[in-house]
């Protein structure tokens, strides 16, 4: 059985979910795709916005979360980290 997700795991899931939707996702979809509660997602999303990894935009009647270049780079770093952990058995 998989262990409890760490903070980094959750952030990775959120950013990967946005990327899987082409870099742009509705907040509700992000919540479902990242397996999070509403409260949990709000806290994490605010944190990601503050760190400029994502930004919130309004298009028509809908809100969207968009991954930034910095967010893209961060996902890349996380993927490298996973590869490194696998190689070194960490």
């Amino acid at each position, binding site marked *: 059985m998989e262990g409890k997700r760490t903070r980094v795991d959750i952030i990775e899931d959120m950013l*990967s979910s946005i990327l899987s939707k082409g870099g742009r996702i509705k907040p509700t979809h992000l919540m479902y795709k990242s397996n999070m509660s509403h409260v949990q997602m709000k806290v994490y999303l605010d944190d990601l916005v503050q760190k400029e990894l994502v930004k919130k935009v309004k298009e028509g009647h809908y809100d969207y979360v968009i991954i930034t270049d910095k967010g893209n780079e961060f996902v890349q770093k996380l993927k*490298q*980290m996973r590869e*490194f952990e*696998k*190689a070194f058995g960490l």
Partner: protein
Amino acid sequence: MVQVVFSPKWFWGKDIFIDSIALLVLLSIAIFATKHYRIKKSKNYLYLALSLYLIALSFFSKILINFTIYYQVLHTQVIGSIEYTPVILKSSEILAVSGLFFYRLFTLLGLFMLYSIYEKQSKANIILMVYFIIISIFFSKEEYYIFYLTCFIFLGVISNRYYRNYKKNRENTSGMLAASFSVIALSQIFFMFVNFTKHFYVVGEVIQLLGYILLLVTFILVLKHGREKNKSRHH
């Protein structure tokens, strides 16, 4: 008498170059691990970074000792006063002997820390191991091969751990990592027999270089795979 120089004269400088490559490879991986420790706050990353910094520091000590000795000997020859060489060497003996002590201490502590990432140690075990490491360095003063034998044992056990990891996940990079540590372990065998002929030192250094190049290639592949997986997911 403490043996400080193991290299044949024609190989002077080339060994410094080889050790500098090892130093750079170790530093690159250690810096990567430090950066990711800041993101993940995982103790394994911290210990990995610290162990690699320690081994890098040991190479730095070795480079410093060799550079000082080679420079002094070559310098005295150039000015034509070769008879003074032993005197000058004597004056730097304290630096060489203490440098050698730190080279051996940092190497063994680094290897032990690397080993401890995979085989968790109790505090009592850590104290015992540090004691035995210092004892082995003490005996290495007279019988230098004890140091290389200890390195070989540590590296062998670590290689075996990486091989088991490879068998578990079948990742190419895990296999290459196990191979690179095995090659570095192999080089220690040649260093052990340096007193028979100094050519063993050259062979040991070349094999060690191959091991570190393989480690560098593994590290580059890890970084590359991370990027590729990210791109393929993005499209």
